[in-house]
């Protein structure tokens, strides 16, 4: 078996022991790596109903067969666990040197279980694993923690660490790396915190096994240069992802005022052009030659690295149209280790709930200074408001009542990304059926809806497009573990990825093989869900209720008077289920599971929930 190291590192924090475990070629070919490994490992090893913040939860760090190989944008790792935010499988990816370092240490994945008896830094160097004291940085933010680690081990090591939000079990605490990268939106940082695991540091020195190392090196090196050239030609990284803000404003898809509005006359103040003009530095992930992390000086003069989701949800969604202040909110989230997207949605919900009389409070839209204080309260779980904010928008809405759940902008507990789907049915579906809750990573079809379809259609073509994008984005890229941006942003052909995969493994896979893998993963994500929520219904795949409400429609602009249609959305959802081979609850049928080679997993899930 080439391409994979064939080993998983299992670490038990309770007993301070570790094991190097082998996996079979069949496992590797069935699940590939990254998200594929994580969904299978956690399905097999976690009992439904466990406390996600208890020692029985497990954190998986998983890489793919091209991880650590110099090729376009392969410096990503997947982090996964049972989510404290959504109550079922959660994951995320982040750029990190853990990717190549863990592979060079001889592992394709790591499973962390148990709970340490004191704040711990897990140090891995090839076959050695040490459980070191992390008291000097417990209570510190991610920037200070990262600096402390670099001072001890040098900048070449791979680092995963958490801030105060993870330590204090904020349900949307992320894992951070390389000072600017973050991943694991559904509370993967809180899972680390619950285990008293402040940081993981990895150093590896072994070669990564490859079928054709010379061929891969030649192709990878040339392709890195070509991606760089295309990026420079197109100018994409001048604004990176933030270029989309001006477009969202133009087509009425920008989140403003907790998604109540879709455009704003001051949005230009925080758009990609302004960000490019304010740029003081540019950052990126390992093996990236089209770096998109644009840093500006925030209101307090600190460097803050922004992308579209940060600006959309901490900026326009909170009616903050001062780029430096948006930078400050983003800096605080990064330092505390809060997910910027859930933080922005949760603060937006809080202001909206106050405005609508669902609760009392002193936070108003546009008040950046109070927003900064609230982020601190949430990260420290300080006081009643801090604790409410730390639990995310859905739990907050349930605490407030008064119908406020309708405008808690989340699906399955995970807050939506910065695309206002008040009248974008396909994108609303993408949020509804995303594997872990409302994550844009899995399918982003707005431009398809506007360019190749019609905005108000709910036809099977939109369901098909969501599935196509899930296969590419949530399936292949998350399992081979590579960033999707070269493909979607500058047109780097998808065929490159099976080519890299085949060079390192010696196999002969095509994109169709990748789609089969992706379908298997999506079915597993549903099995994870139904195992935890046996009474699951199709309503669980609905987007926020406020998007269906006529009185929430825009009063002017491109979508004046428009809103999602309940019956038509339900029909669109059925198209998706039919094409996927799922039943009317949105659960894969036994027949579908058998076709995907998941009969054993079906039997395991059937112990907890009824399968059709």
């Amino acid at each position, binding site marked *: 078996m080439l391409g994979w190291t064939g080993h998983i590192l299992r670490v038990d924090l309770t007993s301070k022991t570790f094991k190097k475990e082998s996996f079979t070629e069949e496992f590797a070919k069935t699940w590939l790596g990254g998200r594929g490994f994580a969904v299978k490992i956690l399905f097999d090893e976690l009992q439904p109903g466990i406390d996600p913040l208890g020692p029985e939860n497990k954190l998986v760090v998983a890489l793919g067969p091209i991880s650590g190989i110099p090729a376009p944008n392969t410096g990503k790792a997947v982090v996964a666990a049972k989510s404290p935010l959504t109550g079922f499988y959660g994951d995320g990816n982040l750029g990190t040197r853990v990717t190549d370092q863990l592979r060079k240490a001889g592992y394709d994945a790591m499973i962390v279980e148990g709970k340490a008896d004191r704040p711990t830094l897990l140090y891995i160097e090839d076959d050695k694993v040490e459980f070191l004291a992390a008291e000097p940085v417990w209570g510190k933010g991610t920037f200070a923690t990262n600096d402390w680690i670099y001072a001890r081990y040098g900048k070449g090591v791979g680092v995963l660490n958490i801030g105060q939000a993870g330590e204090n079990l904020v349900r949307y605490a992320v894992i951070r790396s390389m000072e600017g990268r973050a991943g694991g939106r559904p509370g993967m940082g809180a899972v680390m915190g619950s285990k008293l695991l402040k940081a993981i540091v990895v150093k590896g020195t072994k070669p990564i096994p490859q079928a054709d190392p010379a061929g891969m090196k030649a192709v990878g090196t040339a392709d890195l240069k070509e991606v760089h050239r295309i990026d420079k*030609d*197109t*100018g*994409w990284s*001048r*604004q990176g*992802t933030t*270029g*989309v803000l*001006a*477009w969202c404003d*133009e*087509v*009425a898809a920008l989140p403003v005022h907790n998604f109540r509005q879709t455009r704003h006359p001051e949005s230009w103040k925080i758009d*990609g*052009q302004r960000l490019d003009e304010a740029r003081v530095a540019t950052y990126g992930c390992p093996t990236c030659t089209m770096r998109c992390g644009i840093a500006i000086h925030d209101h307090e003069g600190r460097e803050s690295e922004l*992308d*579209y*989701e940060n600006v959309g949800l901490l900026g326009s969604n909170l009616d903050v149209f001062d780029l430096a202040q948006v930078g400050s909110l983003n800096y605080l989230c990064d330092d505390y280790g809060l997910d910027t997207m859930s933080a922005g949605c949760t603060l937006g919900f809080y202001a909206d709930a106050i405005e609508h009389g669902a609760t009392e409070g002193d936070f108003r839209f546009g008040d950046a200074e109070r927003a900064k204080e609230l982020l601190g309260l949430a990260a420290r779980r300080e006081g009643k408001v801090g604790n409410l904010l730390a639990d995310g928008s859905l739990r907050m809405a349930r605490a407030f009542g008064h119908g406020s759940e309708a405008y808690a902008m989340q699906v399955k507990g995970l807050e939506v*990304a*910065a*695309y206002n789907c008040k009248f974008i049915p396909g994108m609303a579906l993408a949020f509804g059926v995303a594997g872990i809750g409302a994550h*844009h990573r899995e399918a*982003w079809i*707005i*431009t398809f809806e*506007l*360019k190749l379809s019609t*905005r108000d259609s709910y036809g099977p073509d939109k369901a098909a497009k969501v599935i196509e994008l899930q296969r590419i984005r949530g399936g292949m890229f998350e399992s081979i573990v590579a960033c*999707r*941006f070269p*493909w*979607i*942003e*500058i*047109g780097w052909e998808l065929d490159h990825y099976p080519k890299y995969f085949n060079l390192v493994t010696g196999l002969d896979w095509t994109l169709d093989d990748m789609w089969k893998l992706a379908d298997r993963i999506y079915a597993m994500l549903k099995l994870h869900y139904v195992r935890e929520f046996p009474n699951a219904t199709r309503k669980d795949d609905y987007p926020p209720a406020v998007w269906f409400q006529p009185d929430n429609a825009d009063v002017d*602009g*491109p*979508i004046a008077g428009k809103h999602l249609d309940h019956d038509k959305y339900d029909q669109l959802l059925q198209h998706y289920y039919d094409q996927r081979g799922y039943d009317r609850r949105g659960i894969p049928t036994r027949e579908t599971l058998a076709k995907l080679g998941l009969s054993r997993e079906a039997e395991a899930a059937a112990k907890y929930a009824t399968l059709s």
Partner: protein
Amino acid sequence: MKVTVRLIGPLAYTAGFSEKEITLAASATAADALAHVHLGKARQTIVTRNGRAIADHDGLEDGDRLTVSPVYSGG
């Protein structure tokens, strides 16, 4: 008639402007308007008129706002 053309993201750097008003014949289409704009080796774009997507052959009206954007992936 006069139409405002707005370019999103890197298209503005290529064309040398982010927004400007252009004068067109009364029967002009979106394609006619875009012929006035140098987009270089632009990758796939999406064109909207007053926030709604249109095709190249669609006609324009005086005062329209035409926006050209790269097809983004969504961050």
